[in-house]
């Protein structure tokens, strides 16, 4: 409050304004109704104003979302490396997990598995695998020009799944032949 409008030099008849009482008592005690609104819920500690709490909660939400991003990325990458495009290959007595994700790691090579098959099965399996490998070579050549193409990636993954399916079928047939 920096200046009063009226003062001793005011001869307009309204200089009495400044002398009017600033405070006027209300006709009743207004506090009980105010206190009823301010009263905290029974299970809360203290009676802290509510609006700032809401603001504090809103302030934390973006931080929590931000903090969750690295976790989500880590989990996604882990899932991709662990399960993305992987193949399960049956090698006789145990299942060999041969991931073919980004690292393109192969635990068991196809030629080694073909070599372990019965002699009668090998030509047919080799011919199937050769056809698949030819297709893979064509796809990889195309990917050299456009490595980001999702269609080519899917086609390559499809050939690997087919390769695994052929090997598993051959292994199964080999086991059946061995039992006879």
């Amino acid at each position, binding site marked *: *409050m920096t200046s009063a409008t009226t003062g001793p030099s005011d001869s307009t008849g309204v200089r009495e304004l400044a002398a*009017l*009482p600033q405070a006027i008592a209300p006709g009743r005690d207004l506090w009980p109704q*105010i206190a009823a609104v301010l009263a905290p819920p029974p299970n809360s500690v203290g009676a802290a*104003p509510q609006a700032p709490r809401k603001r504090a909660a809103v302030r934390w939400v973006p931080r929590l979302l931000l903090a969750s991003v690295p976790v989500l990325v880590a989990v996604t990458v882990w899932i991709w490396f662990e399960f993305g495009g992987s193949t399960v290959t049956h090698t006789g007595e145990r299942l060999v997990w041969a991931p073919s994700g980004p690292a393109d790691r192969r635990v068991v090579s196809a030629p080694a598995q073909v070599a372990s098959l019965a002699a009668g099965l090998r030509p047919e399996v080799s011919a199937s695998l050769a056809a698949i490998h030819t297709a893979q070579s064509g796809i990889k050549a195309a990917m050299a020009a456009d490595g980001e193409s999702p269609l080519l990636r899917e086609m390559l993954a499809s050939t690997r799944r087919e390769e695994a399916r052929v090997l598993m079928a051959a292994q199964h047939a080999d086991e059946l032949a061995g039992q006879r």
Partner: protein
Amino acid sequence: MKPSAADGNSEVSVIERAQKGEVAAFEELYRQHVGRIYGLCLRMLRQPDRAEDCTQQTFINAWQSLRSFQVRSAFGTWLHRIAVNVVLAQRPHTVQGMAPSDTVDVEQGWVLDTPVEVSELEAAIASLPAGARDVLVLSGIYGYSHAEVASMLGIAEGTCKAQLHRARLLLRKRLASEENEK
């Protein structure tokens, strides 16, 4: 009406306690300021019931935003700003200075327990149009500057000065006519 330094320090500690959620401390602040807040609301609204409602709402709003209050500022001024906002929100949206209350008669029930001259002055203020009355009350009675009044009411400083000029002319006229009637 300026508080002493000791009073100021005392009020600061009460405010800080209230900011921590102590309702008893906030009640202390209420007791200290309710008269000035009710006085402002009553002069702006001219209706005791509505003035009481606005006073209550002012303190509720103050409690809810108490943590944002900077103790360096004047608590009374901060409360007044809230009260003005509450009062303005109560009024129907109209062009500034042409509120419907301009044409409404002053409520007959509002009689102050004060000497006749003061009562006449209050009645003359109450008879002013809303826009002019708001400026006159904040500036003339509560001592706020044009800039502060303009900021509180959300109007231009030039408008504030014009409204004050208008209010003073009208007030003089009404007081003069009352004097002539005697």
